[in-house]
């Protein structure tokens, strides 16, 4: 995986989608979720992806996160064609370069916050002692010092999402994929989470791709991409480096 960063084409794109389509089903019942997406994302960007339900924004996100495979088109991640990678190679790509934050948190139940954050490090084979230290630091970075031994059931929604963010950033990913990270949270908590994501973008240079349908949240991003009926409708440059307000 550790080939020359940013590919051989001379451009600095971290992510490059060309003509990506995604079709569910076949024949007359075929549903075209994506109808040809061209998109480039550079290192350190904070991109918000917006659009109504069914516009294909989540599908695109899943393809970007290597959780799903496109029907056609090419996806270059750091210049590497993800389409040529095997299932296991895609898993290793996720393990080393991608962090995920989901709307539903997707933490392991009845498992302490610390163990949840340690999980990706276990799959990366980080030794136990180092794992604990890094997980503690990641929890501290999201403001959860003292909550390490609490299980998701004992944490509020905002705290659970913080644990999920800690789990995503503990591997120091190139890209953090956030799929409606504030979808289950109230507005105050949502702003706290967005501040946190912005801080990671700004201070650690982690590229963030975030799907949201709340305009309030999209303004945190530098660039907003609007999806409609499976294609990119408009792209808006917020003109600011990272955080608004």
């Amino acid at each position, binding site marked *: 995986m550790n080939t020359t960063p940013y590919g051989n084409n001379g451009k600095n794109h971290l992510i490059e989608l060309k003509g990506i389509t995604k079709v569910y089903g076949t024949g007359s019942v075929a549903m075209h979720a994506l109808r040809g997406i061209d998109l480039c994302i550079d290192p350190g960007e904070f991109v918000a992806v917006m659009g109504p339900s069914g516009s294909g924004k989540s599908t695109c996100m899943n393809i970007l*996160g290597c*959780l799903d495979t496109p029907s056609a088109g090419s996806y270059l991640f750091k210049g590497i064609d993800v389409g040529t990678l095997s299932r296991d190679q895609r*898993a290793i790509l*996720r*393990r080393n370069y991608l962090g*995920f934050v989901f709307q539903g948190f*997707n933490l392991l139940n009845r*498992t302490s916050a610390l163990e949840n954050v340690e999980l990706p490090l276990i799959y990366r*084979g980080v030794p136990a002692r180092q794992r604990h230290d890094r997980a503690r630091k990641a929890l501290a970075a999201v403001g959860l010092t003292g909550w390490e031994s609490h299980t998701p059931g004992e944490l509020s929604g905002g705290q659970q999402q913080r644990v999920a963010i800690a789990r995503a950033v503990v591997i120091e990913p190139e890209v953090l994929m956030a799929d409606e990270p504030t979808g289950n949270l109230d507005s105050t908590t949502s702003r706290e989470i967005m501040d946190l994501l912005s801080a990671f973008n700004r201070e650690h240079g982690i590229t963030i791709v975030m799907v949201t349908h709340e305009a309030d949240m999209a303004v945190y991003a530098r660039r907003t991409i609007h999806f409609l009926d499976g294609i990119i409708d408009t792209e808006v440059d917020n003109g600011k480096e990272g955080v608004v307000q």
Partner: protein
Amino acid sequence: MTWETILLALRAIRRNVLRSSLTILGIVIGVGAVITMVTLGGGATAQVTSEISSLGSNMLQVRPGQDFHGPGGTRSSAEPFKIDDAEAISREIFGLEAVSPTGTSSTQVISGNKNWSTTIMGVTNAYLQVRDWPLESGREFSEAESRSGRAVCIIGATIKKEIFGDKDPVGETIRLKKLSCQVVGVLESKGQTGFGQDQDDVVLVPLRAFQRRLKGNTDVGAIYVSAADGISTTTVKEDIEQLMRERRRIASGEDDDFHVRDMQEIVSTLTSTTRILTALLGAVAAVSLLVGGIGIMNIMLVSVTERTREIGTRLAIGALEREVLMQFLIEAVVLSSFGGLIGIILGLVSAGIGAHILGMPFVFNAGIVVIAFVFSAAVGVVFGFFPARQAARLDPIEALRHE
């Protein structure tokens, strides 16, 4: 990674205490039941075998009438034996220890106000030798008593208990039909036969007295023969059959109208009975193992939603399919072997207690322990592992979306 995977599996077990313990419980019940049942069955078989040897394993019974399977009984149509037949066996057959002609009848024993229904056997002293049956007190029949057919008797332990209680019966008189009979000896207790008959519920009188005073004929019902040490009962049986065919003038090709039964035959009848019993118990236990397995399957399927999402999460953060599978496999193996071990211990302990309560020997059967353990492990692995495999093969996003 292997150690880490084991760690992940152990964490997953610890995290889901209820689910884990229910899984273990299912296996414990199944394995425990199988081991208990089969071990008890083995104990029953061993006990039956030892009871048969208490009958005297070198003993043969010669009875008039054709063979029919099961203990006791004769065909009335066949001509009965006479004392001569017993004497001929004693004289002509090689390798005998003792021969006793006998007669059997059921009657009431009366003494004072006590009344007991029992079996009267007319025997010679040789009967005690054939049955290897020592006296608890008193003496055998004297030569004169045997010859003259005097009204004396030796009683079994049950008769002593029922009629005399704690009193010493030797010298007392009991009444058999119209015959007043003096008790000269008491037999040691032999307990029940493998068929549940009380061997001690018997009154022995001299054969001559039995024939003359109780039956009014000279018939002999069955001839009990014991082979000397080191002599095969099969050979003795064949010799006796040949002799009796000659004496009873049975042409070659005609069926015997008598039957020589050796204990091997009874042993095989009884062991086949207990084997069926063991198989039956084993089948019941196998059903409980199956039910335990279904319990495990239920638990696994109920938790499949949660687990599928867990698998999706693990895949999303970069776990390989085989790492997830290995974790679930280890989880299933650990749970089922742990359950299997507890089941084995529990099964052996309860079999031990059961054997103690039922007064049976405890026969350890390593084979069934291994079979039960392997089966339980297989059940655990199949039902724990395969749903997980289905999930781990999904695209991560499908597993994550699973509802």
